[in-house]
């Protein structure tokens, strides 16, 4: 077991009831990192984040410091957009950070805006999160009054407004270019990239940094303790700590901040301080390691560390830090259908392979589950998957603008490969039922009334 005693970097205030207030935040060291950052040059602040090797926590895991460096020289204004549209099934961390420690996020946004030179910040909070919106609004109002946000922050020449923006219910808006479209008042459909990544041409076609809530919540700790200290935790390629939501069939479902890259899936699922094992001590059937988009893992993957490179290499991803555990009683077909149905519902409709493909995947899986499957359906599923994600490989290729389509392929390729007999059994039962029905029909037709 590698349950380490790494410090809580972003959940340290979760024990305080008043952490969401300015008084509670200041009493626990809040806004000291901002003061420190303002005593440094923007370049020095940026360097600390680069040295920390802070990976983005939204799903793709791209290094934040590198992303910040992609803004083209001489093009102003630059914007920063915070992605608080957490909606990947299984994922529960950003809402917690926004509700319980909103000032930490605001401080992270301010430091990032200072380092990159962003003239305005937009904090995009998922529409369904009313409490997070209230906590952030209250926190911003307090922070403005105290001189931490707005004009001439803490008496310096650094000025930036942080604008709270609510979404309105669309998973796809978590994709960064769709988020920008939504923030521009449009339907939240992803933009084709390349040619333009948001750092070059984003909000209003200006250089834009889009970072996840958890990513930016790490920034105050990095500035306070230094990038090198941050990089002292975790493994090569996955530094610091990370929040994981462990849900499904475990004894202690919960959100845990663990040392990144060192702790294993087995720790997270079985250690008494984390998941505590499978409910009723049943057997593990499968687990999703990084949110609904991720291919499934099994028993043999339990000793993999929670580390980006290792998990990528094993054929899945840490994604948004969501571990969904299924025990032996789980119906693989139903679980697969559930995840696919989500993507079919959330497809924005822009790309044909995704719009039509996910819809058909859902219909085919539904009829298999409902007892109307056909013997050709399993091959048909793979054929549709191949149209969305040619070769059905990992990392996925895609015929779509964004990864939503290929995400619907993950559960099917996983479940069909591992639990094929369950699908075949349902199709066989349906085939037999049809044959029986035909036999009855034949009987009726050939039954000639006597007399």
């Amino acid at each position: 077991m590698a349950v380490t005693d790494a410090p809580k970097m972003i959940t340290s205030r979760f024990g305080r009831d008043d952490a969401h207030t300015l008084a509670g935040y200041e009493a626990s060291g809040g806004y000291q990192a901002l003061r420190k950052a303002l005593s440094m040059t923007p370049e020095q602040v940026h360097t600390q984040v680069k040295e920390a090797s802070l990976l983005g926590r939204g799903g793709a895991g791209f290094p934040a410091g590198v992303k910040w460096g992609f803004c083209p020289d001489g093009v102003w204004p630059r914007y920063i957009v915070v992605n608080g549209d957490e909606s990947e099934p299984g994922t529960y961390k950003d809402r917690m950070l926004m509700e319980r420690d909103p000032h930490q996020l605001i401080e992270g946004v301010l430091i990032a805006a200072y380092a990159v030179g962003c003239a305005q910040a937009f904090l995009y909070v998922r529409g369904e999160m009313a409490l997070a919106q209230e906590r952030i609004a209250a926190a911003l109002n307090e922070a403005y009054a105290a001189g931490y946000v707005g004009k001439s922050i803490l008496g310096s020449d650094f000025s930036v407004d942080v604008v709270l923006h609510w979404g309105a219910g669309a998973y796809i808006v978590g994709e960064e270019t769709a988020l920008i479209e939504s923030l521009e008042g449009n339907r939240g459909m992803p933009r084709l990239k390349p040619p333009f990544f948001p750092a070059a041409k984003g909000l209003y076609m200006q250089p834009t940094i889009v970072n996840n809530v958890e990513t930016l919540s790490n920034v105050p700790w990095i500035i306070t303790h230094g990038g090198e200290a941050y990089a002292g935790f975790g493994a090569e390629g996955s530094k610091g700590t990370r929040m994981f939501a462990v849900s499904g069939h475990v004894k202690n479902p919960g959100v845990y901040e663990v040392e990144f890259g060192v702790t294993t899936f087995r720790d997270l699922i079985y250690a008494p301080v984390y998941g505590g094992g499978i409910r009723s001590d049943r057997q593990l059937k499968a687990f999703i390691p990084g949110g609904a988009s991720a291919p499934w893992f099994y028993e043999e993957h339990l000793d993999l560390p929670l580390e980006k490179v290792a998990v990528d290499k094993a054929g899945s991803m840490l994604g948004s830090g969501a571990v969904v555990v299924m025990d032996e009683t789980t119906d693989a077909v139903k679980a697969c259908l559930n995840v696919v149905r989500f993507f079919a519902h959330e497809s924005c409709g822009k790309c044909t392979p995704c719009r039509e493909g996910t819809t058909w995947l859902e219909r085919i899986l539904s009829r298999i589950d409902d007892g109307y499957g056909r013997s050709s359906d399993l091959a048909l599923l793979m054929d549709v998957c191949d149209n969305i994600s040619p070769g059905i490989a990992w990392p996925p290729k895609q015929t779509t603008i964004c990864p939503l389509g290929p995400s619907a392929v993950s559960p099917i390729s996983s479940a069909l490969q591992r639990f094929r007999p369950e699908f075949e059994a349902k199709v066989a039962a349906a085939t037999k039922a049809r044959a029986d029905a035909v036999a009855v029909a034949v009987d009726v037709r050939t039954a000639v009334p006597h007399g």
Partner: protein
Amino acid sequence: MARFTPENETVAREILSRYPVPKSALVPLLHLAQEQDGHVTRDAMVHIAELVGVTPAEVIGTCTFYEMFKMEPVGRYLVNVCTNISCMLMGSDALLHHAEERLGISAGDTTPDGMFTLEGVECIAACTEAPCLQVNYRYRTNVTNESFDSLVNELAAGELEDEIPPHGTLARIRQHIPADRAAGVAPPDVNRVPVWMQTAVADTESPAGSEAN
């Protein structure tokens, strides 16, 4: 069927003032319309179009993309039961079925008295406390059939009105940027180096700049 009240028009103008490009305020203004009337009315959308400077068709185009905007009246309480994988594993199918029986309606419908609309929804980020639901976007977690029944009873008896406002109202605290503290919007078409970046920019860009000269 209402345009914004004078009070809400003031709020709308304050929201608009925070964005460099007015259309960015569309989604927040649609929320304001829904808060005022319980759903987004056609008149409100026309009013929003006037305020933002776009056509009503563009407002409808944006509005219809987002799940939370209701173009028709819904119940005073919108009950959203999560149906996604973590909740499904913990029995959300049975919970939704129970909710349908208790309320006497199918998911997607509204009770005849206009009190409840029931929906099965996608992940609402409470996966470790499954199964979960929201009533007007206020959470209830680890929900059982029994706790669902008492929730419905309390809602019907008006006992939760302080905690759960009628459908349409999201956050009851609004951001307010005091005029004397505002840094101001950053218009996309004004290429100006932020003050605090000027030294850094001068250091890194002057060689390139002098070459260009």
